[in-house]
């Protein structure tokens, strides 16, 4: 009994030895395998965590659509995705995401351009960076409040336009709590996201390229159209896709603004989860989640393909 612990102590000592003796190490195969095992064991907490809270929920989310609440296989929910009512919500989600992504990308790119040449450590940049992060990631409920206070029925801008210019922005009905009402709040978080994602690409433009262009007699116009634009294009369109995905998957702002009805896909999922019967079908939320994730995978694949092309110029 007293002898048994000895090898353990020895092993403990050996482990404290430098690893630069590969020969002696491989001369002790049992310890090596044990060590390897220990290394792999170190990966298990993360693996289990991701399995339980990411992999399983994702699989459940996309697979429940294929089953009824009693567990029988059904295609009814998937067929339900092609119901005109559901297709309309997908279409609404598409156009809201597309419009806000394009506007956000263009305005955001303009701001990035304006920030070129400012010091990255300066007060201006760090303020804009932080404000962008807050608005892009933190928004949600606050943005709904902000826009109700701005262009709600009693909003500051609504009243100002009415009292000063006699313009009633709701002359044709209150659109803030409908799908068009999502446009402005969404643009409000799309522009900051564009600034965050596109700025590194713009900063990747080397001053030498502009100098070379100037030395060769190029104008400012030829520099931006012939040099900068081709270099920036993958990054710009990649960011555009990311913005699209961002708007497409955004829920909080819409949930806070639109309390009745389910005009876009995330709100449709809300209805499906709460009432559990959309179109009289059970587990419709799963089918909607599957539909959403297919769109997201297509968009994000495009994004990462474009992103890897961008990385070339940022070395």
């Amino acid at each position: 009994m007293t002898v048994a612990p000895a090898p353990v102590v020895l092993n403990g000592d050996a482990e404290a030895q430098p690893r630069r003796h590969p020969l002696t190490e491989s001369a002790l195969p049992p310890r090596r395998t044990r060590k390897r095992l220990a290394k792999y064991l170190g990966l298990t907490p993360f693996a289990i965590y991701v399995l339980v809270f990411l992999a399983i929920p994702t699989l459940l989310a996309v697979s429940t659509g294929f089953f009824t609440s009693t567990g029988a296989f059904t295609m009814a929910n998937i067929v339900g995705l092609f119901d005109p009512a559901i297709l309309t919500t997908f279409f609404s989600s598409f156009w809201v995401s597309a419009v806000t992504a394009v506007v956000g990308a263009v305005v955001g790119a303009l701001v990035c351009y304006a920030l070129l040449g400012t010091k990255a450590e300066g007060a201006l940049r760090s303020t804009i960076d932080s404000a962008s992060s807050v608005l892009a990631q933190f928004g949600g409920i606050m943005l709904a409040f902000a826009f109700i206070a701005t262009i709600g029925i009693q909003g500051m801008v609504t009243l100002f336009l009415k009292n000063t210019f006699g313009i009633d922005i709701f002359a044709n009905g209150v659109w803030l709590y409908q799908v068009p009402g999502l446009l402005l709040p969404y643009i409000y978080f799309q522009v900051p996201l564009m600034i965050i994602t596109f700025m590194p690409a713009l900063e990747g433009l080397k001053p030498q390229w502009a100098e070379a262009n100037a030395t060769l007699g190029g104008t400012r116009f030829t520099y931006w159209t012939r040099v900068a634009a081709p270099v920036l294009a993958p990054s710009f369109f990649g960011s555009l896709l990311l913005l699209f995905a961002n708007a497409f998957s955004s829920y909080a702002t819409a949930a806070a603004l639109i309390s009745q009805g389910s005009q876009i896909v995330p709100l449709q999922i809300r209805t499906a989860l709460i009432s559990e019967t959309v179109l009289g079908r059970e587990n419709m939320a799963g089918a909607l989640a599957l539909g959403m994730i297919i769109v997201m995978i297509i968009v994000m694949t495009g994004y990462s393909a474009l992103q890897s092309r961008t990385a070339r110029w940022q070395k």
Partner: protein
Amino acid sequence: MSRSIATRIGAEPGKATRSVILIIVGLVFVVPIAAMLEFTFRAGLAGGYTFAHWTGIFDPAQASNYSNLLVGIGNSVVLAIVTVAIVLVVLLPTMILVHLQFPRLRRVLEIICIVPITVPAIVLVVGLAPVYSVVVTILGGDTWTLAFAYGITVLPYAYRAIQANLGAVDMITLSEAGRSLGAGWLRVLWHVILPNLRRGIIAASFISVAVVLGEFTIASLLNRTNMQTALLQLAQTDGYVAVIFALLSLIVAFLILLLIGRLGRTRGNRSTS
């Protein structure tokens, strides 16, 4: 000097162009925030302004109206702490281990950590509902258990912050130097690796806090109360106070992120990409 050359050859905008763009966009972006502020001073539909809504927050007589919000804020703070703990105890050691011992798994880890961007919260919540019905039977239905889901939502941000730091420091050489000087693994981890990752760890923690404080989707659809769901609920009864707290939380989040920015570039290393 270099700036004026860069401007002349067209690589950078001129001062006037820059100012025009930034001022116009800046003004447009200030309007909704200003509108929120203006709203908190309104006396009511009749018009006129008052400080009552702001002073009312400190009025103990009205405190009961905000009790749900206070519960929500308390829950959010607990969730933020537990989420940061998950990042530091589960994600961070795995990232270090993979970086030092399993270089081939680096790409796999990266892909796993980016997945939550492709699987939005609104989709994840559909599958989380059944998972949580099991979690509740094991750990109870307390709000803090939501942090397991939040750990997933912050994964891309936390990963990026730590990875930027891991990539910038030569951890392999440092840890081998430590080992060859006779230090054990724990000692190397505690005295060599972690101090070098301090900035990444702090940035990851702060971004996690910001994301958790702003989270609405999962809490709302799993019927838990956090700051955001409580704010939305409060908006139905007392819109003014809801907007005041929304403004305050925006400011707090802004300051948190400003701090990350400062930490991130103290040594010329940009930790966001």
